[in-house]
């Protein structure tokens, strides 16, 4: 059986009845009429020929809207992930935004010679340790400060906010300068080899910290640990936890004293946090704890649309269009802010509010903020 046939079997794509529901919800198909998830499977069955030049597998956002809709539970995102890695083996050049800078950064982090400086965001007022029960996985969030400097947002603020929240509940999280990129972007752009190297390094680092729980502010990182690392490495020996879950736990245990905020906000579900990990309620409960009013967008929870790019793969005209549509939707709720829980969603949306589309400024003009940062304001 060829690798592709195996993939079709394993992901359940074999069960597809060509009902077309996936296409009806796919945000790429909505804009690009030539794109249809189902047809990618049909084309794949024709064999490996042309796989290296196949464009559609790179256009998919792996957002999981189709998975969620499919009556036969076809795991389409995993199918695309597998196809990309096959395509690369057959000579495809992955389509990556920023010229592949982020993937290069990930590969560089596999080098045993590297002496990183990844904790430069840790200011004196933050308490962190080398060891502890709770390890805080920071991933590449602080690196985005520089990669996207022109967007004038500091994603490292998410990390600072998370540590402040933990500190105020009496937790000193372990962090490590030897941690590396989780490998999410490499894994989703067809580079399993370097992905596995990164995984090994991270698991070693966390083991050395002695942590029983690993907290994430980045849903991509969390997804990668929860599914992809476990797939390869089996039981990780620690629990994987989202910051919103931790915050709610701490409030429950009366460990986190906080003030109330006012105002009206809306929440964008990141695909990795929502459809991939199934975490919809915790972020909402956490936001409600701040005292702010939460209003929902027309398409929310599992119907949430996409920020337009994932794994720093393709960023094209349709990505921009999706961002604009989403921002308009957020604006329509009357909220003063759109919160999200993913550094990349934040960056992607910011790209569209950032003086890029003359004439649309007013329609998309809504401040975007990370929900961890938003919550940390209740501590002030």
């Amino acid at each position, binding site marked *: 059986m060829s690798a592709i046939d195996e993939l079709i079997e394993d992901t359940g794509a074999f069960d597809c009845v060509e009902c077309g529901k996936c296409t009806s919800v796919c945000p790429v198909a909505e804009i690009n009429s030539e794109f249809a998830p189902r047809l990618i499977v049909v084309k794949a069955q024709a064999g490996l020929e042309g796989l290296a030049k196949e464009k559609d597998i790179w256009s998919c956002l792996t957002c999981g809207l189709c998975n969620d809709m499919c009556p036969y539970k076809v795991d389409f995102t995993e199918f695309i992930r597998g196809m990309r890695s096959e395509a690369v083996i057959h000579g495809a050049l992955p389509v990556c935004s*920023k*010229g*592949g*800078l982020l993937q*290069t*950064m990930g*590969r*560089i*982090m*596999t*080098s045993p*010679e*590297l*002496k*990183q*400086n*990844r*904790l*430069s*965001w*840790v*200011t*004196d007022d933050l308490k*962190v340790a080398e060891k502890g029960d709770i390890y805080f996985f920071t991933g590449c969030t*602080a*690196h985005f400060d*520089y*990669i996207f*400097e*022109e967007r004038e947002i500091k994603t490292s603020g998410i990390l600072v906010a998370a540590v402040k929240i933990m500190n105020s509940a009496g937790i000193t999280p372990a962090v490590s*300068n030897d941690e590396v990129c989780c490998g999410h972007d490499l894994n989703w752009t067809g580079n399993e*080899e*370097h992905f596995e190297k990164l995984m090994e390094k991270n698991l070693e680092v966390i083991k050395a910290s002695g942590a029983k729980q690993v907290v994430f502010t980045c849903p991509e990182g969390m997804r990668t640990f929860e599914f992809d690392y476990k797939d390869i490495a089996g039981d990780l020996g620690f629990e994987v936890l989202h910051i919103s879950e931790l915050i709610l736990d701490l409030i429950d245990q009366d460990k986190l004293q906080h003030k109330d905020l006012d105002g009206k906000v809306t929440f964008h579900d990141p695909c990795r946090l929502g459809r991939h990990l199934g975490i919809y309620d915790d972020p909402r409960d956490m936001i409600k704890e701040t005292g702010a009013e939460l209003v929902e967008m027309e398409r929310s929870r599992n119907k949430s649309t996409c920020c337009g790019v994932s794994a720093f793969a393709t960023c094209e005209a349709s990505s921009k269009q999706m961002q604009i549509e989403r921002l308009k939707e957020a604006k329509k709720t009357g909220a003063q802010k759109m919160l999200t829980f993913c550094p990349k969603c934040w960056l992607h949306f910011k790209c569209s509010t950032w003086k890029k589309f003359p004439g649309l400024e007013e329609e998309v003009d809504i401040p975007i903020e990370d929900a961890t940062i938003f919550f940390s304001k209740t501590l002030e």
Partner: protein
Amino acid sequence: MAGEASTKPPADSEHHEAQTPPPGEPINLIAFCCNWCSYAGADLAGVSRLQYPPNVKIIRVMCTGRIEPEFLLHAFELGIDGVLVCGCHIGDCHYISGNEKAEVRINTLKKLMDMIGIDSRRLRLEWVSASEGTRFAETVKDFKEQIEKLGKNKIYIAQS
């Protein structure tokens, strides 16, 4: 360096430490030169028979504004010891402001490099006009000496 904030990473001294390359292991440099000024400057150095280190390989680009940060980081990934970017003096770019954009990008990339753990002194931006053959030769010489002090870039990621 990224953030004066007192940070906890292991002393940086290690990666800034001088390691003269072992004999037989030459320094590998790349110079990206824009077509209109710096490449002509490098050419002038050549036709004027100025001596400069043979360790440098020149890549001609239309403008420094064409150089994506990815090109530079990728060079370090492949074990290049130092990358020089040469463009027209500010105000002279043939595409008006390509060099200004390059300057912003390179300054940002340097901060990222330090965070990743590649000494940002391995990347240098210089303005060299078409008439500055001597300046080109001097720049390469000086850069090579600086990189020699920093030692070899030990990162090498095989591309499969």
